[in-house]
């Protein structure tokens, strides 16, 4: 019984070209947005907007082009763990650099 269920879950999902076209168009729109946003003076929000749009694009690519949305739980967990570890490492590095000179001035 559980075997059957696991088999179904792992069964290969073919993503339809319609989804690829929509994703492609979305990526083009976001590219236009990020270039356009860089020409508008927003002060500190310029880099924030640029990185936010880049993250959205990356998530779209991972979910649809890389099929993670349709993958097994193992793949989803692997991807999540990897990104989580990466962000943790960056976070700890930055925490070090930010706090290194604290109390020394």
């Amino acid at each position: 019984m559980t075997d059957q269920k696991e088999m179904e879950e792992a069964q290969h999902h073919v993503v339809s070209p319609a989804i690829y076209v929509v994703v492609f168009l979305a990526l083009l729109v976001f590219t236009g947005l990020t270039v356009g946003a860089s020409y508008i003076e927003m002060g500190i929000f310029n880099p924030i907007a640029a990185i936010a749009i880049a993250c959205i694009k990356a998530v779209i690519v991972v979910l649809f082009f890389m099929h993670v949305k349709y993958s097994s739980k193992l793949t989803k967990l692997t991807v999540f763990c990897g990104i989580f570890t990466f962000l943790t490492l960056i976070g700890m590095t930055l925490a070090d650099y930010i706090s290194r000179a604290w109390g020394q001035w």
Partner: protein
Amino acid sequence: MSDSTAIAHGAHAEAEAHEAHPAFLRHHFENVEQQADAAGFAMWLFLLTEVMFFGGLFTAYLIYRNWYYPAFVAASHQLDIFWGTLNTLLLISSSFTMAMGVWCAETRKKKGLVLCLVLTFILGIGFLGIKTIEYSEKIEKHHVPGFHYSLQSFLDPDSDPAAKAAGDKPLPLDMARHTEVYFSLYFVMTGMHAAHMIIGIAILGFMIFRARAGAYTAGHVTFVENFGLYWHFVDIIWIFLFPLLYLISRHANT
């Protein structure tokens, strides 16, 4: 049917089981799905090591940009948004054609697969071609870190069209020298990205060859699929490189 029953039935049953599965199914896997899952899992583990590799470079960029902010702003004005945007479009398109290639392989369309792989190949070459134009511009202006590095664009911005157009003010000498750090990171990051592109294009060439012989349209798509993952990953790296190197310092004039 599990392995243990096959063993219990002895050599005869094993020979029967042999005929029952497709030729590409390795014997240590129970079925095709399990084999595909294992291959996909392994590919993702490899990509995660790549994430950590590029992640270190991104972190270095982040920290140095905070330390030498005026230098990074002035140096990034030397990049041409037009080429960067065009390259982004080329790479996104190549990701799309690659995704379509995976679909063609899954639905066993040989001609479609070959066409998609060839398009991906061409778009990849196009990306590298534009990168060459950009690099040669840097070489001409002596913006490649090393003995021949020139600070002129940053000490005297009016002498440089790109710096003048961006409204750069002259940097003090000690800050101007740190533009070299920006270009070091620029060349390492885009260079490593380009190296991944070159490897990808080489594998694409091999795949076009094999796809024409019908290797990926007979049900065994793992290789195409995993290469697709690699290619999309390279695309994602550029999705982050492009705003960080080209875009975020457009207006930040100090």
